[in-house]
């Protein structure tokens, strides 16, 4: 069963379109939700955690409508964007209060709170007021409140925003360890290489519209209007360029410096097939062959470029 199933899902706020006729699904595991500002990422997350009601279409989380549905919310942990804190509260009290709101009662609540705080490695700082926390610590305590009722699905809205490199690294490790427990994670972010490091599974949306889903490579291959670029670093790039110019599948060639040549093509597999022969025939030394735009960063760049 899909964790999340969107069927012709639309959401609009008056005349502003948040999501427009999106059909997609999210399976177990970690899924990155990627899109530029205004793409509809937070709207999609709001719909997934039952904060918003679809204007059209339907959304199913664990096979049920999440709107006003405590059964679904009990299985979902949400970590919204920003700093949704009562700053004078300690981290422990913050998690404990939200644990009570999640329905955890009785003497076991205290243990569950400590367990969630331990999972995000905040035990040492839990009795300090949140206002004294660094950005990374705030993100972690926010994730602790989302984890406290041990949900099956964790929905994280821009968790990397504002964190420093160390904080980002720690957060990534935390998410990876949660994924290791089997928790499914839907994460939106602008820090694309972090998303890419977390998961190969992405959903791309732009201007409220679904663009693609799948692995980064799959999505890139489906962007037919954009030629692929392959960077080749060799000792004699000009000689290689002359030979590549005779290959039908090559759409364009650029020599960047005295070692690097960039090949543009719509059929990268054909170029990969031909390259060994072309290089070996010239007795050249190869330092690198890399697809430069099969990264999330490149996809995102294309997306924003097209939107502009």
């Amino acid at each position: 069963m899909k964790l999340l199933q969107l069927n012709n899902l639309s959401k609009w706020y008056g005349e502003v379109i948040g999501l427009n006729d999106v059909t997609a699904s999210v399976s177990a595991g970690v899924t990155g939700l990627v899109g530029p500002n205004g793409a509809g990422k937070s709207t999609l997350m709001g719909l997934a955690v039952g904060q918003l009601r679809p204007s059209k279409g339907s959304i199913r989380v664990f096979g049920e409508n999440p709107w006003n549905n405590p059964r679904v919310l009990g299985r979902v942990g949400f970590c919204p964007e920003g700093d949704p804190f009562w700053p004078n509260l300690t981290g422990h009290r913050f998690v404990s209060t939200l644990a009570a709101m999640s329905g955890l009662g009785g003497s076991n609540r205290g243990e569950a709170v400590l367990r969630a705080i331990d999972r995000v490695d905040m035990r040492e700082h839990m009795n300090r007021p949140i206002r004294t926390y660094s950005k990374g610590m705030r993100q972690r305590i926010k994730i602790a409140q989302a984890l406290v009722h041990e949900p099956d699905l964790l929905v994280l809205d821009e968790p990397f925003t504002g964190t420093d490199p160390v904080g980002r690294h720690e957060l990534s490790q935390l998410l990876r360890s949660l994924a290791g427990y089997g928790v499914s994670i839907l994460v939106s972010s602008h820090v694309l290489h972090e998303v890419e490091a977390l998961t190969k599974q992405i959903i791309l949306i732009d201007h409220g519209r679904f663009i693609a889903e799948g692995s980064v490579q799959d999505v890139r291959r489906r962007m037919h209007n954009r030629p692929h670029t392959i960077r080749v670093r060799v000792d004699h790039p000009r000689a290689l360029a002359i030979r590549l110019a005779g290959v039908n599948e090559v759409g364009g060639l650029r020599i960047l410096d005295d070692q690097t040549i960039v090949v543009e093509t719509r059929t990268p597999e054909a170029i990969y097939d031909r390259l060994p022969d072309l290089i070996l025939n010239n007795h050249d030394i190869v330092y690198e062959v890399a697809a430069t735009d099969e990264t999330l960063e490149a996809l995102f760049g294309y997306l924003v470029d097209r939107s502009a």
Partner: protein
Amino acid sequence: MSEAAAIDARHYRRWPGQLRASRWTWLAIVRQGVRLQLREHRKRNLLLLSLGFTVMIAITLYILTALETLAGTKEAESMIGFIQAFLRVDLSGITRITELREVLWRTLFLVISKGQLAWVLVVVSMIGPGLIANDIRSRALPIYFSKPVTPSTYLLGKWIVIAIFVGAATFIPSVVGLIIGVAITGGLPTYTQNLHLLGDVALAGLVNMLFAGLVILAISSLTRDQRYAAGGWIALCLLSIFAQALLTESLPKEQTAGWLGSISLYRDMSVVDERIFSVREAWSKTDLPEGVFNNVLPEPMNVMYPVSVIAGLAILGAIICYRRVARFSKAAASVQ
């Protein structure tokens, strides 16, 4: 293996019990709200100051009881002076204080409730403005609504927080004062004679909680800055009093007997309290000369006008805060 079983197999899930039903989530909001308020010294002091009403009630009941035996004697003169000044009734020449016990006790609680109305203005202006405004400012609403909390349960929790403080500043001091007064004065017969006062005090407190609670929640939901909410609440109360005074001065009495006489929220609440404590009815059952209680009773008017104003504002407040909170919960997940 199912996904849930797969998670369990990795020892992720250790919570042994069932999650509590979502209809109880307001309890967590109440606990957190009260705890946050009580962290501030000035708010704790506010509640302690409310016990002044308890002291006033106990002292006055003690004096009234003493007067029942001392009336007509020289020692009673200063006591009567105090009662006349405090309750604003003319008791000169009256010696049958025992027969007036019920009406005088009712009058005492009416006077106290009037003082408490002014006190509610202060208490609500300190406790209520941040209840929703702070959540909006700190963008905490998405966190609330990601839990099994609906706008209704959220507002119920917030209303109970303000109701607890209004109750602690009005209802509880009155009840404690009544209990102490009964204990030190007459014992069981006095208690049974004035048992109805317990219900009256509870009803007056409930009206305060409903009206002030819903109106301040509505104002608090309209801003991110609790100072504006506090200003709005004080302005609403004081401007209504000034406007009423202005109209009373400038218009003939007949014109201010209807809706125009219900502009002052303080007066509206006083009229409702007077009806709850039934001082006028109790007074009319005695053979005291007309005018003895005129200073303490509000101008007679159709109670439907003030009741309509109070109920209307409370309902409007409930609608506003519900719509605002529901809107903010949606805006929290606005287009990104």
